[in-house]
């Protein structure tokens, strides 16, 4: 990494200026790119664009290769150096042992985004697809309120009963995961023999599934896939949820160690 010709603060708070977009350094002009945790903001006072931090964390600087497509040829010359500047959240940087193989950035997992591995619960299946609700990310802390409200008087959902009617607000439940919905289409269940997938032999309502986000989908649903060995059902109970917990035997069978019941699922490879 090349030397910076100005001091970057190590720890920053939102709104703190990091650097301008271009810095005339010798022998090359340095262009900074706003990475995760930063944003380009126009400053009225000096009438320049600068990169500002958008979260609390530590500054990280990574040199990037010059992209070699035609667009850049017009504007940049070879005397330019690209540096991506980003702010890494203190919590994420601390437990660096957890790394997500798919998402390159360490951006906080506030929202599911393309490529993320998520855990979801199957709520409905049809011939073409399984509807799921996303309940969290793998190995990411999640908000505590899951929407249960028992008080010795039975289970009452937070948006259940007459309290269900809400208006103007985003959602009634307080939890992020509980309310984002997703779809696993039959062709996205597995990588082979995709045309012959029978949804009923892959998922059952109530199963906990590990899946990857394919796309943001439409207004309501994310599109998810389980077409990988390590993706699929991880928790399931036999007899449509009435029986015992089952464990994966191979990639399409699960068994309950207590009762010996065997059911079909598209399992995540457990090892």
């Amino acid at each position: 990494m090349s030397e910076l010709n100005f001091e970057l603060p190590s720890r920053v708070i939102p709104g703190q200026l990091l650097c301008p977009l271009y810095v005339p350094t010798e022998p090359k002009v340095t262009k900074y790119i706003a990475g995760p945790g930063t944003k380009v903001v126009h400053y009225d006072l000096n009438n320049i664009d600068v990169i500002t931090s958008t979260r609390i964390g530590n500054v990280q600087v990574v040199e990037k290769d010059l992209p070699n497509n035609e667009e850049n040829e017009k504007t940049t010359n070879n005397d330019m150096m690209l540096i991506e500047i980003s702010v890494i959240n203190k919590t994420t940087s601390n437990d660096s042992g957890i790394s997500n193989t798919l998402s390159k950035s360490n951006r906080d997992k506030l929202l599911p985004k393309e490529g993320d591995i998520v855990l979801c619960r199957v709520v409905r299946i049809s011939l073409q697809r399984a509807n799921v609700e996303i309940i969290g990310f793998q190995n990411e802390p999640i908000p505590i309120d899951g929407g249960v409200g028992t008080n010795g008087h039975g289970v009452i959902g937070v948006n259940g009963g007459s309290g269900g009617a809400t208006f103007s607000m985003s959602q009634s439940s307080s939890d992020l995961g509980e309310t984002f919905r997703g779809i696993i289409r039959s062709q996205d269940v597995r990588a082979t023999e995709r045309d012959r997938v029978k949804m009923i032999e892959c998922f059952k309502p109530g199963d906990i599934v590990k899946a990857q986000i394919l796309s943001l989908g439409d207004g309501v649903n994310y599109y998810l896939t389980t077409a990988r060995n390590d993706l699929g059902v991880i928790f399931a109970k036999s007899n449509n949820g009435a029986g015992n917990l089952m464990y994966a035997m191979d990639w399409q069978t699960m068994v309950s160690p207590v009762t010996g019941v065997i059911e079909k699922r598209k399992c995540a490879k457990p090892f």
Partner: protein
Amino acid sequence: MSAVITVVKKNGGFQNANMVLNKSIQGFVSSDEDEDNILDNDIDISSSESDSENGTSKDRLSFQIVTPGELITEDPIWMRGHGTYFLNEMTYSSVAGVVSRVNRLLSVIPLRGRYSPETGDHVIGRIVEVGNKRWKVDIGAKQYAVLMLGSVNLPGGILRRKSESDELQMRTFLKEGDLLNAEVQSLFQDGSASLHTRSLKYGKLRNGLFIQVPSSLIVRAKNHTHNLPGNITVVLGVNGYIWLRKTSQMDIAKDLPPGGSTGAGSTIKSNIGNQNGGLSANSTNVSITRLEEESSWQIYSDENDPDLSNSIRITITRYANVIKALAYCEIGITQERIVSAYEASMAYPNIGSLIEREVMESLGADVINGEKMRGNAV
């Protein structure tokens, strides 16, 4: 008149509302008489002279404009079409509009109302929803139109096969809010339209301004994209959606005569004549040669050209106001009229004054008078 705001103030609202309605109807009629364009060839409004052969109820049938509930005819010989209903052997109108008779079919074409798509219409639409392998498009009709993923050209050339990744990244091609022009490919059972953009003259719209006029003012024609003086191109969607943009290379090429010419958008007038003739063959020529380039990602770009000069923008604004003035005067909108109104508007150096009622009315009058003088009018 104040430069800041003009206020028309009247006592009693609803009576005046009637006056406005009358005026608009008259406007419609007058433009009707002036220009046959307003009506399609297949619709024949019989005037009182050329009335029905049996001629039993000549006085009733002589009404050209009817209001809902108005008796059209007592003669049961007519087949009842859209906009009519039948009660006690008599045919009444169910909308406010113009009576139309085609052979034995009697229908009323509403003066106002939502656009009803027909196959082959060149329309402009706005994406409202990205769905499963299709986009929902607002074209101002009763239902949203559908644009299937298979009905668009994707980056990488026409012959490219649609892959699954395309389904997942449909939003990168067209997303909510995007404007495009397209052709109505077919109609579904319920009257909603299925669109396609499989031609280089269709696709995402950029470099300009969107305005909307009642769809009844746009006349269906062979060509709906016109290059106007001042390096401006207008796309007149049949649905009343209009796009004004800076003339692009494509637009110029399209207007060139088959032999090829150097004048970029210079000879509009000459083009008007040969548009019907040489155009279709010509545009396909261009398409093939430019296929490679235009099928790249650029056709779905959201970026405007960097060289949209202020003078272009001002001209676009002037055209937009001129078209709105024509719409205000309920004059059918054609390329010739836009140009003639544009020329007339040059009398007003301040474009902002074109939004005033008197100015709009005088512009409309200028256009009509101009046509009368030239003898275009019927």
